[in-house]
C-alpha cells in the first residue's frame, strides 16, 4: 500500500505558503478560541466564510481537502442532521458550522505547510524548555525515525500477513500481529544500538525526551 509521505502538503507559492508556520499555528489557535467564546450563528458563518476564502487563496485541491478530513466531515454531517432535528437548523448551523470551519482552517495549514517546516517550528518552540531537560534535537531525531519507520513497518506488516496467509491463518489476528510487533521491537533495538554505536543521541539529559 503506497502512503504519500508528503502527507497532505501541496507545494506552492501562495501568500499562505509563504507565511511562517508559527503565525499560522497562532492564528488557528486564536480562531479556535473565538468560536468557543463567541458562540453564535454569525460567528460560525464568518469563520466558515474565512475558511473557504483561505482554501481558495491556498489553491487547495478539493480532493486533498476531503481526503484528509473525510471521517470528520461524516461525523459533522450526522451531527448537523441530529441537531437540526433536536433544536432547529439555526442552532445546528451555529454548532456544526463552527466545527466545520475549524476543521477546514486546520486543513489550510496542513495543505500550505510542509512537514519539514512544521518540524523546524516545533524544534524552535521547544528551545526554551531545554532548561527542564527537553532536548529539541532528540525530539527532531524521534520524528525523523518515526517518519522513516512508517514505510518500514508497513512492509513488515505485509510480510507477516503474507506469512500468516501461507499458514492458512489469515483469519487469526494474533498470527500476524504478534510476529509483526516482535519484528518492530527487534528492528527498533537494532536501530537504537546503531545510533548508540555512532554516538548519536548520547546521554546528556533526560534520556526519554
Amino acid at each position: 500500500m503506497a502512503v504519500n509521505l508528503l502527507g497532505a502538503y501541496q507545494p506552492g507559492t501562495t501568500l499562505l505558503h509563504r507565511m511562517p508556520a508559527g503565525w499560522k499555528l497562532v492564528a488557528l489557535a486564536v480562531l479556535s478560541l473565538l468560536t468557543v467564546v463567541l458562540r453564535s450563528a454569525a460567528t460560525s458563518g464568518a469563520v466558515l466564510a474565512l475558511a473557504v476564502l483561505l482554501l481558495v487563496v491556498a489553491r487547495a485541491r478539493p480532493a486533498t481537502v476531503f481526503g484528509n478530513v473525510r471521517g470528520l466531515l461524516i461525523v459533522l454531517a450526522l451531527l448537523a442532521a441530529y441537531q437540526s432535528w433536536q433544536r432547529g437548523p439555526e442552532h445546528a448551523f451555529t454548532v456544526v458550522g463552527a466545527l466545520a470551519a475549524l476543521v477546514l482552517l486546520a486543513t489550510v495549514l496542513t495543505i500550505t505547510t510542509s512537514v519539514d517546516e512544521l518540524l523546524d517550528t516545533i524544534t524552535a518552540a521547544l528551545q526554551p524548555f531545554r532548561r527542564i531537560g527537553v532536548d529539541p534535537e532528540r525530539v527532531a531525531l524521534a520524528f525523523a525515525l518515526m517518519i522513516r519507520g512508517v514505510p518500514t513497518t508497513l512492509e513488515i506488516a505485509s510480510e507477516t500477513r503474507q506469512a500468516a496467509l501461507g499458514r492458512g491463518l489469515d483469519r487469526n489476528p494474533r498470527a500476524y500481529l504478534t510476529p509483526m510487533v516482535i519484528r518492530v521491537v527487534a528492528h527498533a533495538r537494532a536501530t537504537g544500538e546503531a545510533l548508540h554505536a555512532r554516538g548519536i543521541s548520547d546521554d546528556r539529559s533526560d534520556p526519554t525526551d
Partner: protein
Amino acid sequence: MNRRNPAVDLALVAGFAALIATVAILPDIKTGVGVPFSLQTFGVLLAGACLGPVRGFLAVCLYLAGGAIGLPIFSGGASGLGHFTGPTAGYLVAFPLAAALCGLIVWRARRRRTDFTLVFTAGLLSSFLFIHTLGPLNLAWRADLGLKEAFLIDTQFFPGDILKNLVMALVATSVHRAFPDLLARPAVSEERETSAA
C-alpha cells in the same frame, strides 16, 4: 525504568509511534469476527503495555504530533490539526494518558512473567478511565450534545474495544516473552545506572 541505553529508548518510542500509525492506516485488518475496524486503540494501549508508562506515553504523543503536522497516519490515512479542533479530539487527547496508565499498571504489577489477565485488565481499565470519558465529554462540549447523548454514542465502541484489548493483551504477553528485559522491574530500575561504555 530501564535506562541502559537512551538511544534504544528513543528508537523504541519512534518504532511504536510508527507501529500505531501502521495499524491505524491498514485498511482491512480482520478481527476474526468479519468486522474490519481500525486498530488505532490497539496500538495505543500496546505501546503502554510493552514500553511502560513513560516511553509508552511518549510514543503515543509522537504519533499524535506526527498526524498533527500532516503525516497521513490517523485512522484511515487522515491527518492534520483539524482532528484536534473537531468533536472527536477528546479521544486523541485521551490516548497518551490511557497508554501511560496501562503501562504503569503492567510495569508495577508484573511478576516474573507478564500475565495475560493483568495486561487485559490494565488495558480495559485505561480505556474506560480515559478514552470513554474524555472522548464523550469533549463530544458533548464541542457538538453541544447532552452528556447522556454523548455517552450513549460512545457505547458503540465498547464491543470493539473489549475485543481489541483481548488481542492487545495476547500480543503484549508474547512480546514480553520474546524480550524479557523490555520493561525493567521497578525494584531494579534504580540500581541499573547507565553502563554505556
